[in-house]
């Protein structure tokens, strides 16, 4: 079924009785050409592009809970391409281009909103670091504008320019940055994959990976064994547990990141604003809620919930930067499991020693914007056995060799500092 405004009107006039399932609920078959473990954003987009770009349709996505229930359903929805290291820059640029055509491609309104992202800086040194970043964005063919204080004031007049603890020097403006409706991204990919024949299997937890003679044979699940020629692990914060089924330790520590949304408010914040000194970023959803977040809670956790000190720190940062949000009331807070890596950058790679086993992980707390390109490049790797050029540096062995370490933050091998 094709979605359109006409269809909405037609259905509205006939009692909305003609709408069907957005995706099929499939039962597991005994065998597939490929299985994706994990029905989050990255897993679903991998399946979608395997089907669409590579014609692989005898594939399944197995998900232990419900589709899109992981980080794609609990993030601050920011979409941007503002990295400065070779390896990241081309990947996120590729992803942003995919975002820009996603609604047409999926025939699903994911409400990708290019409202502009402004990263604030507070000293000459930070300005120069952002200049380096912005220049790389332009080198890559993306957009970046260096704003001075008055330039920031024009966009964000409500910031506290006078009293705030860390005075605003300026900002790096990324007009093509923005937000998207996170759940819709998962649903849109699910629908697109399902329509192309991919089996989406919910409530199906993988309990083991079958490997014989160094070759992957399939998976054991709570709904029985499923054979597969290729298996892709795309489980974000749970990567450690699933990789362990294949006998592999990963350079990943799982951490909790909290996010917050306020009650609905009339439009007041038109951009995505990021405040580096306070680790605070905010945008306003189309429903009116202020959606914002900050840093990790900083301790390893799978609890999907956080504690007060970081909540308070995030609110503290908001109050010093934009005290106009003081009367907004936080409605909900939640936590996601972040697969933190020692350089803050991801892995899309084969698992050495096991033919047919692939992994896509290590998205730290920036995985949402990567969903399209991650799936695109993971699908390319699984289908062709070669790395896509946009993700060629996301190798697992880089921590051992030191080749192409991608440390944007410059904080080093302590996982929680990225």
């Amino acid at each position, binding site marked *: 079924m094709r979605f359109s*405004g006409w269809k909405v009107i037609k259905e509205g006039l006939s009692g909305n009785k003609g709408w069907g399932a957005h995706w099929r609920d499939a039962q597991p078959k005994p065998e597939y050409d490929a299985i994706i473990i994990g029905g989050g954003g990255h897993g679903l987009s991998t399946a979608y592009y395997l089907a669409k770009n590579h014609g692989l349709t005898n594939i399944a996505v197995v998900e232990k809970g419900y589709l899109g229930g992981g980080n794609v359903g609990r993030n601050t929805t920011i979409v941007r391409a503002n990295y400065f290291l070779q390896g990241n820059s081309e990947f996120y640029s590729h992803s942003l281009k995919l975002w820009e055509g996603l609604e047409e491609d999926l025939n699903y309104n994911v409400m990708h909103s290019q409202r502009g992202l402004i990263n604030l800086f507070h000293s000459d040194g930070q300005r120069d670091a952002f200049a380096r970043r912005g220049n790389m964005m332009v080198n890559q063919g993306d957009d970046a504008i260096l704003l001075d204080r008055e330039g920031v004031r024009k966009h964000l007049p409500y910031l506290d320019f006078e009293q705030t603890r860390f005075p605003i020097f300026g900002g790096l403006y990324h007009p093509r940055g923005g937000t998207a409706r996170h759940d819709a991204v998962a649903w849109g990919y699910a629908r697109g994959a399902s329509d192309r024949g991919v089996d989406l299997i919910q409530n199906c937890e993988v309990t083991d990976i079958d490997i014989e003679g160094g070759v992957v044979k399939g998976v054991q699940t709570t709904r029985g064994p499923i054979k597969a020629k290729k298996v892709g692990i795309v489980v974000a914060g749970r990567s450690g547990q699933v990789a362990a089924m294949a006998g592999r330790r990963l350079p990943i520590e799982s951490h909790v990141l909290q996010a917050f949304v306020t009650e609905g408010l009339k439009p007041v914040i038109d951009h995505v604003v990021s405040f580096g000194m306070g680790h605070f970023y905010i945008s306003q959803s189309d429903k009116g809620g202020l959606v914002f977040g900050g840093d990790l809670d900083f301790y390893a956790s799978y609890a999907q919930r956080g504690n007060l000190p970081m909540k308070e720190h995030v609110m503290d940062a908001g109050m010093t930067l934009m005290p106009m949000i003081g009367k907004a009331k936080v409605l909900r807070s939640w936590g996601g499991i972040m697969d933190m890596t020692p350089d803050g950058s991801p892995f899309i790679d084969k698992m050495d020693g096991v033919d047919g086993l692939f992994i896509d992980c290590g998205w730290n707390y920036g995985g949402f914007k990567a969903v399209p390109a991650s799936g695109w490049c993971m699908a390319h790797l699984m289908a062709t056995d070669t790395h896509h050029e946009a993700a060629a540096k996301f190798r697992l062995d880089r921590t051992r060799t030191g080749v192409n370490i991608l440390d944007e933050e410059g904080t080093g091998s302590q996982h929680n500092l990225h």
Partner: protein
Amino acid sequence: MRINGKGLVDRSTPLTFTFDGHSVDAYAGDTVASALLAAEVKLVARSFKYHRPRGVMGAGSEEAGALITVGNGAGQDPNVRATMQEVYSGLETRSQNRWPSLNFDVLSLNDLASPFLSAGFYYKTFMWPKAFWEKLYEPVIRRAAGIGGLSGEHNPDSYEKAYAFCDFLVIGAGSAGLMAALTAGRAGADVILCDEDSIMGGRLNGETYDVGGATGQDWAASTVAELASMDNVRLMTRTTVTGAYDQGTFGALERVSHHLEDRGGRPVECFWRIAAKRSVLAAGSIERPVAFRNNDRPGIMTASAVRTYLNRYGVAPGKAVTVFANNDDAHRTARDLVEAGVHVAGVIDTRRDAPDGDGYEVYKGAEICNSEGRKALEAVTFRYPDGREDKLQTDCLAMSGGWNPSVHMTCHMNGRPVWNEGIQSFVPVDGTVPGMLTAGACNGVFSTHGALTQGIAAAQEALSDLGVKTAKADVPKAEDAPYRLKPLWAVEGKGRAWLDFQNDVTVKDVKLAAAENFRSVEHMKRYTTQGMAPDQGKNSNVAALAVLADATGRGIPETGTTTFRPPYVPVSIAAMGAGSQGIGFAPQRFTTSHKASVEAGAPMVEVGMWYRPSFFPAPGEKTWRQSCDREVNNVRNAVGVCDVSTLGKIDLQGPDVGEFLDFVYTNMFSTLKVGRTRYGLMLREDGTVMDDGTTARMGENHYVMTTTTAAAGPVMRHLEYVHQCLRPDLDVSMISVTEQWAQFAVAGPKSRELLNGLLAEEINSDSWPFMACGEALIQGVKGRLFRISFSGEHAYEVAVPSRYGDSLFRLLVSRAESMGGGAYGMEALNVLRIEKGHITHSEIHGRTNAFDIGFARMVSAKKDCIGKTMSERPGLVGDTREQLVGLKPIGVVKQLTAGAHLFEKGADPVRVNEQGYTTSVGFSPTLETYLGLGFLRNGRARHGEEIQMVDHLRGITTQCVVCDPVFIDPEGGRVRG
């Protein structure tokens, strides 16, 4: 309509406030909701999506209908529950989400378009043409959405945060909570009792039945009075416990002065962090509405809310009230109304065995299937068991679909409640929040007797865990009526039946979601937005998932619940971020020379937490560059003074300090002679440079390390880590002395001359050669003197105890000025060090190692040190690495900028051609040119090569020559001079 003789409001204190500019009469003790109902104002708000008329629906913090804006100007407070806002004289309130007025709201047209606005409609449209989303569709949607509005101005009010501690936290002061607190209080335990209402007592204040031989209201009041008399009990009214966190930590929001006309300097709210050894949740329960066609009109309320307005506020919410029930409890509403002389149009009870009425008609086995009245309820249509329909004229409907225990807090740590068939709702599971028990209605026990009994039991269990003995407590005599309920979630029929009154989610929407395969409760919630409005689904979630269960052919327990997440009630950002507005976000650190620098007109800039002078403008100078150039020249030609106290200083003592330093630094320190200083490089364990600085050996077992300003804290932590976690065998003590010493760089060819005017003992090149250090008497004060140089000039750093810092700085500067020099700031400091090729964190930015900065030889081959092994990884050395170089402009364009990228001459400035980047630049008055430091691939082998620097953002392309990063005095003659 006021009912004489009823309620707890203070009839002797009448007052007025305004709603949408109209004056409303009220009494002290009223809420905005009770006063509006008394004044027969029915239409109070508009819903989110369809802009449907909304009135007061409840009487608590979960209010689904009456959200208002309080106040005007910068401090206007949106989305305030009219049911929680206490009135005071002069209070200004407004309706919201309407334009131009509440009565005539243009966007109520959305209601007519509702067939096209069903759940998830926006995912299916607005995709064409592509550019219209940001330009047209999204702005229109955004403006229509939202509820209340912020002022857009800085918050003008004060907020507060605080900590509290107790043995036993009681959450909720209804019958269960009061009894728990009383039991624990009498046993002498350290108790905190929190309740979100302005008076404690919970449902007892809204009911007419007796407890312990007195009215419930009186029993509550006397119990509160007894608790208030106990030193070991802290009563916190207007305080909502908002979240349960690990190890017995709770968040709580106290509304300190929202109810006061004159706040008198009080904070508006206080956000409490309460650490409790044990706790009991006695949060009560929330009555649930029933979904039927047009069940959302103003005048339709919960049955218990109608009782609360009658019994607590002395207000009848209607003149002819109808009750719609599926349980016995709701009949109390009819009884109380009749007793107070209010006409009850009838009780429509879905149960054929419903009790008979006394003074009112009971329509047994009937159900309401529609309502009438555009902006206020006028009539309801109901259906007899045989299918006949009838109509009652009524202006208030009190409905009850049963009660849902407030289990939320038990789920904040991932606990899941379980379905209880008897009460047709979810009840908590023990132990989901460690240390927390539940008692009373939140535990699914709805009789007063049951609540009192559970309150006692909870206190006894908690106290017994803590080793506190409790006396045997008698349960006060109270009603113990059975809770007879026949489940009813949604009345069958055409039209829209509301579940979520705020987000306008109807039964149809949930069914549509199920049909579109959003069958998981989480999918349904996200697709329909059910339960995501300000009430967080407190009024609607259970019914919505019952509808979903029905639509998907599953049972309710199998369908499951969504996750309850903190906060229990919305918390203002200002409260949780109290104290941080303005400068409070982080401490400010001031050097001892701050005052003198400000007096000299120096702009102060942030460096970490510190403030440092940017430059010291001299008379006639118009730009910072003029000042900077002069200050640089002062240092190169005469003498300059700069406060360097912000650098970290760590005192290390003990027999093993030398060995310890050898382990944390790449180079050797055990071999350093007493009275000498050495530059050291410190790596992270991953091989990247962590920090650099000089370390002085003051005695055989005594070293003083300096760190960069930004790394002072992290380095201290790192040293403690290395000592405690890796080498506890070493006998080393360390302590920060950053704050002890005011330290000033005195730099330039005349530096020794200046110092010799102040030192008790003159120094010369033999007594104090380059890198010498030691104690010295400065103007009679015992201090320290280091001959070290960041500028590359003959220079010293002189340190005195901080109390003398201000005085010494002024003295040094005046002496320097008399010698043709003066103070210099960060700008000059930066130029001086660039000229000399000295690095800062612009270069050691966390991605560079000793090889990259040309210090590979500083990694001693003779020993292990932190980071050494990993720094030798193949990817971290060799000609593919970007290496530190100097850059000088050689073309027409003379300017260099930091953060630009480097390309081969003539190459396209695109990513694949990128060869490196600039990190630091400055104009050198010494060499009369811009100088730059940067990293260039294989740069050390490329000295002399011409490359181009491209800064797209600033529009600058400069041809440069690559050179050694040390631009002046590479032999080091000046520094030794």
